[in-house]
């Protein structure tokens, strides 16, 4: 449904301001922004009438006035830089600040820097991996992102230290944008964290290009205020023999919607799209994944786990496309949910479209409660009911958390998870 008149005129006004502010941008980028703006205006903010948003109605974000009413991310403290002393933390303000980043073979640049240093790489990738044509929110980000974090990994570089991109405290604005290009046979780990207090809407887009034999391990953690709306797109494009690992840790926000996908475009590719969502009270969290098997001999794995308490709702929709030429595809998808309350609800759906005939695709989904027998077993050894519950909750999530490749991040997630569902009352 197209954007309404009030919001359309508001968006246009803002877009016109943006074009003034970014007058120095190359024409290809302005064209991409203009086209994205058009696409957004014709599609509008998705509502529940759109099948892809059946359970996640974003119409609250549609009205122009409401949009203006939503503030920028507030001024709460940034979570401590827990990625570890070795990690290179990069903060993104409105104008993008790079905090002491130096790692051989890895460059983290602002949009302006990247346009100067790598104009052709940028033109090739920025806005071509996450394509805005069919995705209103991606279009909106593409039209409006004021800045971008551009991570370039030189061919052959094996980056030892993870790169930490922090978006908190008004950083990165309402439409954070990240582009990661991993050169041939390079390897890099990247952690993006999104935080902020108050009520706001953040609409982030990350694009990842893994060129031949490259390896990108990406982790996206969102712990925004429970008054915030978070919409995020992560899209990968993979050349032959490359690997993209994505981990989505969705912990905060009133409503969070993540669209995560990758296209396996050359033979011998592999991807893991994993995640853990842990919500309580009346939070809503939605993951839509899409893996596009476009070439033969590629493997994809997905493990998404959810822990839901209170009145929450979780949504998982996992699409797997296997194109005609993608023979010998091996795709595994699993979504498992633990409900800690009778009022929590989950909608989970695999969606497989298979056009090749020699493939293996498996999927499974479970929705369950804590195992009362196991809880009794733990209690019969002297462990309190509350501790037994915590242990089992953590145990449920543990195999998903094991897929977070940066150890301090994994430990941080674990402690957040345990603190979130701890109950002293037993």
């Amino acid at each position, binding site marked *: 449904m197209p954007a309404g008149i009030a919001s359309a005129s508001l968006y246009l006004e803002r877009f016109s301001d943006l074009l003034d502010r970014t007058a120095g941008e190359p024409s290809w980028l302005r064209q991409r922004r203009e086209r994205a703006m058009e696409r957004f205006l014709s599609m509008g903010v998705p509502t529940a009438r759109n099948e892809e948003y059946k359970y996640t109605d974003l119409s609250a974000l549609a009205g122009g006035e409401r949009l203006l009413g939503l503030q920028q991310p507030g001024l709460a403290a940034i979570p401590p830089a827990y990625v570890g002393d070795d990690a290179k933390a990069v903060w993104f303000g409105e104008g993008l600040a790079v905090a002491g980043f130096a790692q051989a073979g890895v460059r983290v640049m602002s949009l302006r820097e990247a346009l100067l240093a790598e104009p052709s790489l940028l033109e090739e990738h920025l806005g071509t991996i996450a394509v805005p044509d069919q995705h209103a929110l991606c279009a909106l980000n593409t039209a409006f992102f004021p800045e971008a974090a551009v991570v370039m990994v030189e061919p052959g570089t094996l980056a030892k230290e993870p790169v930490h991109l922090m978006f908190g405290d008004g950083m990165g604005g309402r439409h954070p944008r990240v582009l990661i290009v991993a050169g041939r046979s390079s390897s890099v780990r990247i952690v993006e964290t999104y935080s902020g207090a108050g009520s706001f809407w953040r609409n982030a887009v990350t694009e990842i290009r893994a060129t031949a034999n490259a390896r990108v391990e990406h982790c996206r953690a969102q712990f925004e205020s429970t008054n915030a709306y978070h919409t995020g797109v992560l899209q990968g494009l993979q050349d032959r023999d490359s690997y993209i690992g994505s981990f989505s840790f969705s912990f905060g926000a009133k409503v969070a919607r993540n669209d995560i996908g990758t296209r396996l475009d050359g033979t011998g590719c592999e991807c893991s799209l994993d995640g853990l969502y842990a919500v309580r009270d009346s939070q809503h969290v939605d993951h839509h994944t899409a893996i596009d098997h476009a070439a033969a001999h590629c493997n994809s794995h997905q493990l998404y786990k959810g822990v839901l308490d209170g009145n929450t709702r979780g949504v998982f929709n996992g699409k797997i496309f296997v194109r005609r030429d993608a023979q010998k595809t091996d795709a595994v998808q699993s979504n498992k949910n633990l409900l800690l309350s009778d009022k929590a609800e989950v909608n989970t759906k695999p969606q497989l479209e298979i056009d090749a005939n020699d493939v293996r695709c498996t999927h499974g989904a479970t929705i369950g409660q804590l195992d*009362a027998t196991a809880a*009794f077993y733990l*209690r*019969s050894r*002297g*462990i*309190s009911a509350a501790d037994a519950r915590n*242990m*089992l909750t953590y145990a449920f999530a543990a195999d998903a958390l094991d897929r977070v490749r940066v150890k301090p991040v994994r430990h941080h997630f674990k402690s957040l998870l345990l603190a979130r569902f701890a109950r002293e009352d037993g």
Partner: protein
Amino acid sequence: MLQIRNLRVSVDGQKILRGVNLDIQPGSLHAIMGPNGSGKSTLASILAGRDGYEIEAGSITYHGQDLLEMDPEIRAREGIFLAFQYPVEVPGVTTMYFMREALNAVRKHRGKEELSAGDFLRLARQKIKPLGMEAGMLKRAVNEGFSGGEKKRSEIFQMSMLEPTLGILDETDSGLDIDALQVVADGVNALRSPDRAFVVITHYQRLLNHIVPDYVHVLGDGRIVRSGDKTLALELERRGYSWIVPASGQAAAAGA
């Protein structure tokens, strides 16, 4: 130490225990035998505090306290340990972590200092060795992928770590080969002491060659229909249960 008086229990409206009386003194070892469905495991579960049973009448007093009012974890901290007939697999929780949490909860309750990680590991390694298990088992998830024998040995390991006052073994011998049975029996015998009592529930007399009971009770149709010393177990082995427990319907009038 423990007094069970006229305990009547039902599950989903079906009467399982129909008036059990039992007194257990410190230092004693009681074997409870009986045919399938006689209520042996129900009795064990009730002692440990499992949900899902309706106590229709009777009482259980443990060290002068009303046991039935205690939560399972309090019973454990007060010294009751149940070795499960079917130990539960807990994926994602290592035995090491689980046992340390349990031991420290128990120690805290008993007014002892919590054990440091190093002291705990030393103790665990020392306790696990005689059970013929590798210390590597501590790093595995609780009972996950364990063989039947490993699970039972793990129960004995846990018991030796927590040093209960009253150890209850629910068919710990079932399905064990003779070597594993010996290991389990040695583990139990090593724990026997004048202030510690055991209730050993078993279907087979064989275990009682290795763990010698002071008393043998026969549970039939929800009641203790006969009590004796270890010779009673031998007699049961020879003659079966039918001479004291009717095949169906009512319990034998002859109680002990």
